[in-house]
């Protein structure tokens, strides 16, 4: 392996801009990636450690996964998180696509201000949106005793509010590369306005929609701060649950549950990226 690399290095001597081949840069890169990944990898590794004290390796076990699976409130939080993310993603993607098409296609009075308004949820600090949502739902008297899943409604609304402008940005970026002559060609060949959208614009937009949906999903699943202010005792999400657990101690169960969430998000990301790559290659 090392010998093969040495041979490769001899065959391909480094040029002056091949920074990946210079040791100070390699060191920086390696240190950065270790810094970024070591904590997560250690977390995953020690979710399999057969010790409560969580420090010394005492052998492989999956008992903390069983424990986490047996922890009803943890599972409930998990299901809540996925439900919220699912609904929020669908609505955010649709709203985001509408905004993207609106801003891409139309000129209208006050457009610059409208764009600025749409960018607000992206730029304002999470904490501000969180407390605003808290005050808003308290003020309108949002009922707190709804049956599941309706009781997640306020969290879902809050999540959509900060997700769909992000989705709009991603979808609009894709639309920007659209050749409008394709649309005109479809119209020229006899397609109606709606048929043109269905047959030409939407298929082109698909990778953008996938990317926007993925972003909305991750934002929702990832969110702690805004949920923290909108969730009640019966509507705990996974991050909120982990937060309350972490405040007390570091336990292998949290490691196990976190590992499951990491795997789920990585899995979904990988699928979405594949879908995106495939449609991107077709263009």
């Amino acid at each position, binding site marked *: 392996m090392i010998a093969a690399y040495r041979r490769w290095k001899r065959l391909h001597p480094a040029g*002056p*801009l*091949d*920074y*990946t081949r210079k040791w100070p*840069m390699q060191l*920086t*890169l390696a240190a*950065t990636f270790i*810094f*970024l*990944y070591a*904590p*997560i990898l*250690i*977390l995953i590794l020690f979710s399999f450690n057969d010790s409560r004290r*969580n*420090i010394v390796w005492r052998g492989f076990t999956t008992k903390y996964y069983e424990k986490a699976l047996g922890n009803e409130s943890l599972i409930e939080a998990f299901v809540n998180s996925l439900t919220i993310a699912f609904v929020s993603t669908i609505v955010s993607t649709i*709203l*985001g696509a*509408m*905004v993207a098409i*609106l801003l891409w*296609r*139309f*000129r*209208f009075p006050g457009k610059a201000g409208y764009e600025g*308004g749409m960018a*607000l*949820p992206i*730029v*304002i*600090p999470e*904490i*501000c949106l969180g*407390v*605003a949502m*808290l*005050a*808003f739902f308290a*003020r309108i008297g949002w009922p707190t005793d709804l049956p599941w899943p309706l009781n997640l409604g306020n969290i879902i609304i809050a999540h*959509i*509010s900060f997700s*769909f402008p992000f989705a709009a940005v991603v979808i609009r970026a894709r639309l920007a590369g659209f050749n409008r002559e394709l649309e005109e060609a479809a119209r020229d060949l006899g397609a109606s306005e709606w048929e043109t959208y269905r047959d030409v614009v939407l298929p082109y937009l698909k990778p953008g929609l996938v990317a926007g949906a993925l972003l909305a999903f991750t934002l929702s699943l*990832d969110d*702690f701060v805004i949920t923290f*202010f909108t969730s009640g005792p019966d509507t705990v999400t*996974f*991050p909120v649950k*982990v*937060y309350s657990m*972490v*405040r007390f101690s*570091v336990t292998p169960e949290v*490691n196990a549950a*976190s590992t499951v*969430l*990491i795997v789920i*998000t*990585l899995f979904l990301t990988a699928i979405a990226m594949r879908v995106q790559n495939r449609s991107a290659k077709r263009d």
Partner: protein
Amino acid sequence: MESWRSTPRVFWAVFSAPSFWLVAFFLIPLSLIWAYSFGEKTGIIDIAVTGTLDNYIRAFEPVYLQIFTKSLWIATLSTLICLAVGLPVALTIVYAPPKAKPWLLLLVILPFWTNLLIRTYALIAVLRTRGYVNFGLEWLYDQASWLFQIVGLGGLGAAILGERFEPVEILYNNGAVLIGLVYVHLPFMVLPLYAALERLDRSYLEASLDLGAGQFQTFWRVIVPLAMPGIVSGLIITFIPTLGSFLTPDLLGGPDSTMIANIIERQFKSANDWPFGSALSFMLMYLTFGALALRAFLGRGRSSGLEA
């Protein structure tokens, strides 16, 4: 681009729903706390909007002013650390072999897809007194004192290293907050820098080398000035979430590591002083807008000379 009048039906179809949402579930909630920030508490949950400026005046009391300056200072410092680390990382990735490039980029983006809370939690496990960093240090201590024993200088070793290993308090202080903020926000910095450097024609770098400049001179005299719009973007994009961060100081910080978001949370969750919390929220928002305005201002001054 066409006027909305040419196809009003399509226009209203895509305009109405998102606009309604933005107004109903974003602008109205924000306006509500904006109104609250000029209000007074009249009962446990009752607030009367009286138009008072007391909440804002209170925010300028030394206790809070100090938290504001401290937040700005911590956010600035961690943003600059991100820049110092992010620039060489982005530069290296831009000039990496074409095959390695998407993978290195993926490694930078991947933490984005990992839950913030999980990452913060992972950092706690590493940094706490019985965590892996201290474990590593203890191991180093043991090796060093063992070496001293071997060469017969055990006493000297104890004098230098101490009688026994004392775990370093890394967690629950300002340093931990700084580490955590850099850890969380580094990808925010690397991506805009990468985008800016990627756009930079490599022959500028080569021309500089060709004319006799070394790598360092090329970096300072050519790369940094030409990548300045990207650097400014990266600074602002990193600075804004850093300034408003709640989780990192809350979980990693000590009693004196409170940042703006933490006192806002306290007003809403425990102190139950919503008007004051609202005023603090808007002060944080104004700071954010200030940073954005600065970016727009710097961007305008720079772009004219660079789009050539």
